[in-house]
């Protein structure tokens, strides 16, 4: 849209990836004179906001300078040899598939930094918190920006240690076990993924994603492709997470601090699905075709399983935790993403990418809202929450904190996929793709998957409405009732949530903003890679 010089674009992309890393190192140093602020804690949290803000601005500039008339082309590319011995190149670039995820990551991390500036993370020192947050940002941004298999693996691994510490140091009850479960599951998956990446790289003679994609698996035998897809797919499926490899997710979400949950759901999970689209689909299409029906089957089981788990948690007396519920709902939503990818059609993959971004926005918002609810009421337990209302009819947020209640209802409705909001398009396109899968895939099987998936949307609507009923509604307290009043949405919360709300509505009403970016890139990818 805005004409920016290509070398400036290159610098912008490298800047976006590197600045958080430098910022992380700087966060550990004492603040320079003049930037000391009111206290060391305040100074370092402000540092976090500044760095993530700068990164967000750079990412927006990158998006503005991105040539929207040819989103299928890699833009802002840098290609430097780093480790010739392993043929690892610092190859960076963005296209229509990675750009939305890059901007989403920068946005969510900035909002998280903003949130922690106003709500001090309880637990360890803010210094470490900010440093870890920034390392996490580098890892996630890098995994969306790199075009080299081994660098992708490096970026993929970079997020493990920061997230482990974010959960283990700043988390809630059961954080230690949850953090271990997260790091061990993900590492086991990613090491297996490394084996697959090495197999592809060694057999094809290059680790470069662009070359591999334009080669479209022609230099790999079907056996190699099958083994590689199995290994890489397992690693990515743990991260996504795909049922039945999801069991680390609910624990991690429940124990993580608000910021950790937002980033985990909003960004980290996307790395898994992004890997499917960026690496497996173009580089090993024949291998992927073998596993696609199984992936689709697991995906729809995940959709139904996640919804049923949520329904069970939302029941009265189930002692369901709201964060755990949203985590299970993520399993369901990511099921739609995987279903879309498994159709191997442009429609399905576009839907998957759309659902990816929509889930990041909506679930990020949901975790922020639940975090705010916890700050006010001290609990995320549904039963305790609804028992706080008058005669235990419900938490009555509409009455006690109308704006907060309204936002929660908005997020829940967006999450269940109401037309007109972001959650709708991705799931509809994924199902639509399953209606007519790629040639070579069994259509009857996919029709069954589609039917089961569609049934899942009903279940999703059911549990989210139950949540709204139990948390937002209820008999409004009168002055005589002994119900504590809740603070309504504060200024900084309003600032942190508004972008998410606006984007959710925008993507819902004007899906072309996203689809226009992803569609040409997806068409190209399925037909033989970006040029």
């Amino acid at each position, binding site marked *: 849209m805005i004409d920016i010089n290509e070398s400036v674009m290159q610098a912008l992309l490298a800047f976006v990836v590197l600045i958080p890393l430098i910022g992380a190192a700087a966060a550990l140093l004492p603040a320079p004179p003049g930037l000391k602020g009111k206290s060391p804690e305040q100074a370092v949290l402000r540092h976090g906001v500044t760095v993530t803000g700068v990164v967000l601005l750079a990412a927006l500039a990158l998006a503005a300078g991105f040539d929207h008339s040819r989103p299928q082309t890699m833009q802002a590319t840098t290609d430097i040899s780093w480790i*010739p*011995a*392993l043929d690892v190149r610092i190859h960076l670039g963005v296209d229509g598939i990675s750009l939305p995820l890059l901007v989403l990551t920068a946005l969510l991390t900035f909002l998280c930094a903003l949130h922690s500036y106003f709500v001090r993370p309880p637990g360890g020192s803010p210094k470490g918190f900010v440093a870890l947050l920034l390392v996490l940002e580098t890892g996630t941004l890098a995994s969306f920006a790199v075009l080299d298999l081994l660098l992708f693996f490096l970026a993929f691994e970079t997020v493990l*240690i920061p997230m482990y510490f974010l959960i283990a140091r700043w988390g809630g009850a059961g954080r230690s076990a949850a953090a271990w479960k997260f790091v061990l599951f993900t590492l*086991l998956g990613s*090491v297996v993924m490394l084996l697959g990446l090495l197999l592809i*790289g*060694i057999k094809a003679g290059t680790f470069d994603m662009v070359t591999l994609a334009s080669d479209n698996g022609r230099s790999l035998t079907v056996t190699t492709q099958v*083994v590689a897809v199995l290994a890489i797919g397992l690693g990515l499926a743990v991260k996504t997470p795909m049922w039945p490899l999801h069991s680390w997710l609910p624990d991690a979400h429940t124990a993580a601090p608000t910021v950790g949950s937002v980033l985990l759901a909003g960004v980290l999970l996307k790395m898994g699905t992004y890997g499917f689209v960026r690496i497996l689909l173009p580089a090993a299409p024949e291998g992927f075709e073998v596993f696609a029906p199984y992936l689709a089957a697991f995906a729809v089981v995940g959709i139904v399983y996640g919804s049923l788990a949520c329904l069970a948690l939302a029941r009265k007396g189930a002692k369901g935790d709201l964060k755990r519920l949203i985590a299970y709902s993520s399993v369901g939503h990511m099921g739609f993403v995987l279903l879309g990818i498994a159709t191997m059609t442009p429609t399905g993959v576009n839907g998957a990418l759309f659902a990816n971004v929509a889930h990041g926005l909506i679930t990020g918002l949901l975790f922020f809202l639940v975090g705010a609810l916890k700050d006010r009421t001290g609990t995320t337990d549904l039963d305790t929450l609804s028992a706080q209302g008058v005669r235990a009819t419900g938490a009555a947020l509409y009455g006690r904190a109308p704006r907060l209640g309204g936002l929660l209802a908005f997020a829940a409705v967006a999450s269940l996929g109401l037309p007109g909001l972001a959650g709708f398009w991705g799931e509809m396109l994924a199902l639509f793709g399953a209606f007519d899968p790629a040639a070579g895939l069994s259509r009857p099987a996919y029709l069954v998957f589609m039917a089961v998936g569609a049934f899942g949307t009903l279940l999703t609507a059911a549990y989210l409405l139950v949540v709204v009923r139990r948390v937002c509604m209820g008999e409004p307290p009168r002055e005589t009732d002994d119900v504590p009043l809740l603070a309504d949405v504060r200024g900084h919360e309003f600032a942190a949530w508004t972008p998410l709300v606006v984007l959710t509505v925008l993507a819902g009403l004007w899906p072309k903003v996203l689809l226009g970016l992803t569609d040409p890139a997806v068409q190209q990818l399925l037909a033989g890679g970006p040029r």
Partner: protein
Amino acid sequence: MSALAAESVVQSVDWTAVAPPTLTAVAALVVLVADLFLPERRKAVMGWITLAALAAGLLLLLPLLDGDRATFCLTADPGVCSYVADRFTVAVQLIVLGGALLAALLSVTALKDEARRLPAGEYWFLLLSSAAGAALLPASRDLATLIVALEVASLPAFALVGLRHGDRRSSEAALKFFLSSVTATAVSLLGVSFVYAVTGSMHLTVVAEEIQQVDGQFAALARAGVVLTLVGFAFKTAAVPFHFWVPDTYTGAPLPVAAYLSVTGKAVGFTGLILVTLLAFPSYAPVWGPVLALLAALTMTAGNVGAMRQRPDREHSAVRLLAWSSVGQAGYLLVPVAAAAYTDEPARAIGSTLAYALMYAAVNLGAFTVVALVGRARPTGRVDDHRGLYAARPVTALLMAFFLLCLAGLPPGIVGLFAKVTVFATAVEAGMGWLAVVMAVNVVIALVYYLRWTALLFRPAEAGAGAALAAGAVPAAQPVSVAASAGAGAAGSGRALSGAVPGAASGTDATAIPDAVSGPGGTPAPNAAASAGTSPAGIAPEPAALPGAAPLTVALAVTGLLALALSAAPQLILRFTGVALF
């Protein structure tokens, strides 16, 4: 060579090529003699001589970088040499001499701290002799020199392990080390003699040719010779089932010696193994390939499971854990050697071993340095003693975290990650998927104990003290803690704990007698536990306050900078995978 002596032909010697081990050996003799004439208070000079000699030895590697020198060649056949300084040799000598130099830096402080119990002269002599043998080993290209070098590297090491006066654990460790090592050497000598019997030569290249044309009746003898020779070298790498001596030996030995053994000892073992397998018995690849692959899988699994099972609150658990982890790392080092049996480019696979060994040497010595630093303040040597290190010494703690994550192979330890990636790549390239999967599982197991330790560094110290008290302390640590807490009581007040002598501070972590901690108020025991838990006690004052830590700081700086530089440019070590080594 014996045949040549009869012809009385004098071989010309390329002194530049043999300079690094020669200089080290000469320095050893100089130190031995100097010990006789130096007065007690000047003994420290020998330490500086050792450091200077090892540093000079490293510098003497510079002219050899081209890797095209050979000497002690047969006059009849100049292509067959006993001493070759190729790139492989230079790389291993870099590991060996660099490792010895850093171990010597650690030793300077250790000798000062334990002046009564460690005789300085003997110590430096033995260290230099062992280093000389280890530096000779990668260059030797005949079986006799190989065995001699191996023994020169090992024999002083036994003595170093048992050198501490009046320490039963130290003597026991030395005896264990000695007995198992000597048995292994005897076995491999037997193997060498069989090989000599069937091939009629000691030179590796000649053996490689001759052993393919062995008479049918001697085939069994040749095979037995090959297997027995390998057994000896497998012991040196501490491969399963020859790994049991490692944890006891490392914990019994003075800490710098353990650090030295963990790096140089490993290098000696895998170098010998590479030379024997690739240069002498390449035609037996179908025999040793699967055996080494199995050994690698067993070794890494045994080592990592052993390390994971170490309880962080046991005495000496830090060194014990590093010992077990070094067994696990030896398993990774063996993977490319095994893979070399299956590929057309064995040198490329060996390059991965070298790259990994270089990474491991720098990082592991760094970790040992931090353990030594912490151990000066808290002699119990537990992993738990590292709790709260970040609050006390942020830079040391960050470096330690970096070292541990490099060992685990996870970002930010980028060099560790890529070293592991090359090892994985050799396994995948050789088609040994099962070994790669075993290694993948091992990487996850290893992460458990490395990350547990890393997390401990950043945990607040006071919570640790409280937890340890609540858990009822550790029986093993009781004698120390009783003495320490008694000392704290004598100091007069509970608050004094925070500033008390380091030994006492470590005692508060483990003490089983809360009364001694409670101070003058006579607080009831449970409260004492609670107050100790919340008071700023439990973290050692800056160990830098102790004199003589400068060499440790230097060692830490060197290893830290090395690890950081390698992380920024892994190509520095990974280049070995791309060059002709032999």
